[in-house]
C-alpha cells in the first residue's frame, strides 16, 4: 500500500452504525453472562478491598477509602470493558469469524468497520462505567447529579481504551498476543493511575510516568466530580484523554489498513 494512502486521515461516514448495530444484536442475545462478566469482577474487588482495606486504612484524602476506591474503579472498570471488547471480541470478529471480511464485501470501508467497532467497544465501556456508578450511587457514595456529571468522562475513557485496544488488535497474531498488553501495560497502568492509592506519595520519577498515562487523567477527573469538586484543572485532564483517544484511533486505522493490505 502506498504510504500516502496508508497514512491518509480516516474518512468517516455514518455507515459505521450498521457495524455497531450488528454487535448490539449479538450482545442482546448474550447480555446476562456479558454483564456478569463485566461487573462481577470489579464489584467483588471494590467491596472486598473497599470495606476490608478501608477498615485498616480509615480515611483517604478526606473521604472514606471505599469512596476513594469506588471512583478509581469507575475508571478501571471502564478501561477494562473497553479493552476486552476491542481486543478479544474484535479479534474474534476480525480474524476468527472473518466477519470484517464479509462486511468489506458490502459497500463498507475499513474505516467504517474500525469506527463501528470503536463506537461499540466504547459503548460497552460506558455501560460498565455506568453500572459501577449505579452501584456507588445506590450505596450512597455519590449523588445522582454527580454520577451523571461523570458519565461523559466515562465515555471518554471508553473511547480512549477502545481505540488503544483496536490498535493492539491490528497487530495481534492470536489471543495470546493480548497478554503482553494486559500484563505489561494495563496492569501497571492500573497501579500507577491513582486507582488504589494517591500517586502523590510515589517518587517524582514514577509520578512523571503516571502523568503520561491515560487512566491517570481519567481517574483525576472522575474522583473530584463524584466528590463534587469540579475545577478548571479537570478540563486539562479531559484534553489529554481526548488527545489519546483521537491519536489512538488514527493509529488503529493505519495499523488495520496495513494488516488488511497484505
Amino acid at each position, binding site marked *: 500500500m502506498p504510504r500516502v494512502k496508508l497514512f491518509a486521515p480516516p474518512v468517516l461516514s455514518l455507515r459505521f452504525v450498521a457495524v455497531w448495530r450488528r454487535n448490539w444484536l449479538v450482545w442482546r442475545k448474550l447480555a446476562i453472562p456479558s454483564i456478569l462478566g463485566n461487573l462481577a469482577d470489579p464489584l467483588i474487588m471494590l467491596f472486598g478491598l473497599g470495606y476490608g482495606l478501608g477498615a485498616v486504612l480509615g480515611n483517604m484524602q478526606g473521604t472514606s477509602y471505599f469512596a476513594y476506591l469506588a471512583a478509581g474503579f469507575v475508571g478501571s472498570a471502564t478501561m477494562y470493558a473497553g479493552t476486552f471488547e476491542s481486543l478479544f471480541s474484535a479479534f474474534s470478529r476480525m480474524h476468527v469469524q472473518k466477519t470484517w471480511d464479509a462486511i468489506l464485501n*458490502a459497500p463498507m470501508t475499513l474505516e467504517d468497520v474500525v469506527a463501528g467497532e470503536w463506537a461499540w467497544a466504547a459503548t460497552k465501556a460506558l455501560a460498565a462505567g455506568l453500572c459501577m456508578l449505579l452501584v456507588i450511587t445506590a450505596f450512597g457514595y455519590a449523588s445522582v447529579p454527580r454520577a451523571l456529571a461523570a458519565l461523559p468522562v466515562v465515555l471518554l475513557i471508553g473511547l480512549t481504551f477502545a481505540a488503544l485496544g483496536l490498535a493492539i488488535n491490528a497487530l495481534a497474531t492470536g489471543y495470546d498476543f493480548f497478554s503482553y498488553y494486559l500484563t505489561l501495560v494495563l496492569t501497571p497502568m492500573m497501579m500507577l493511575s491513582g486507582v488504589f492509592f494517591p500517586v502523590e506519595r510515589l517518587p517524582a520519577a514514577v509520578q512523571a510516568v503516571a502523568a503520561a498515562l491515560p487512566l491517570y487523567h481519567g481517574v483525576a477527573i472522575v474522583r473530584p466530580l463524584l466528590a463534587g469538586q469540579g475545577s478548571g484543572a479537570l478540563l486539562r485532564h479531559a484534553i489529554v484523554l481526548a488527545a489519546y483517544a483521537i491519536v489512538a484511533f488514527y493509529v488503529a486505522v493505519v495499523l488495520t489498513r496495513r494488516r488488511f493490505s497484505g
Partner: protein
Amino acid sequence: MSAAVLATRGLRKSYAGVEVVGGVDLRVAQGECFGLLGPNGAGKTTILRLCLGLTDADGGEIELLGKPVPQHAREARARVGVVPQFDNLDPDFTVAENLVVFGRYFGLAAREIEARIPALLEYAGLAGRARAKLNTLSGGMKRRLTLARALVNDPSLVFMDEPTTGLDPQARHLIWERLRRLTQEGKTLVLTTHFMEEAERLCSRLVILDRGCIVAEGSPRALIAGHIEAQVLEVHGPGVAQWMAGARRLAPRVERAGDTVFCYAEDVAPLIAALRGQDELTYLHRPANLEDVFLKLTGRDLRD
C-alpha cells in the same frame, strides 16, 4: 472500456516481490457466467479482490459496473454480491438475522430487507428455516445461505470464489441449478473454480490462468476443440510403459502420469485395437474435456 460490466486492462499485483497477477485483461459482458480457472496460486482470488477494490493494484485499470475501481469501489460494490471462498456467516445469528444484518451494510431499510427474505430463503432452499440457528445448518445449507446473502441487495453482478468447494454432489448440483437461475434473470456471474466439470457446465466463457497470466480464453467447447484432440484413452496396469512405446505411433499426443498413460487422438480405434490381448491392462475411453485442456496448458505438477 465500456459496455462490459467488468473490464480490466493490464492488471498487475505483486506481493513481496512475487508477481501474483501479471498483466490481466478481462471483459465480462452482462448476463455472462464468466469463469476464472487456474491451479492454486494462479492469482484467481487476488483478481477478485482487486476487482472489488479490496486490494490496490500495482498497475492497470479496472471498471466495475461503469465505475473506476478502486476510486469508486464503494458505489460499485453497492450493486455487487460476493460469495467468498470460505463461509463467513454470523454464527450468533439465525438464518433471517444473517440476511437482515447484511442488508444494513448496503444501507437498506429493515422493511425493504424483510420483504425480500421469503424469496431469498425460497431461492436458497431454506424456506421455513428463517429462525433456525446457524449451527443447525449443514455445510450445503450454509453455502446456500451465503449465496442468498450475496443477493440481499439484488446485485447486477455476483462474484463467487470457489462456490462449491467442499460440498457433496447433491449440494453441488443444487448450487449449479441456482446459479443458472441467476444468469436466466440476466445477472452476471464471475466465478473462480478449479473444478473443470463446474466450469464446463456453468461458464459461457472462461479464462485459464497460470502464474498470474491468462494462457487461454474462450467458451469451454471452443477451448476443448481448439486445444486438444477429441478423444482420450487412459490406460494403466503392469507393462503399460512397454505398451506406451507402441502407442506413440498411433496417437499424436501420449503422456504418462505415474502408472497411467493418457493418449489423445481424433480417432482412438487403432489404440483400442492395440490393447487387444493385453489382458493385464485396463483402459477408459472418454471424450476430451476441459480438464484435459487445463492440464495441457498448466502442466501436471503440483502447485502447493
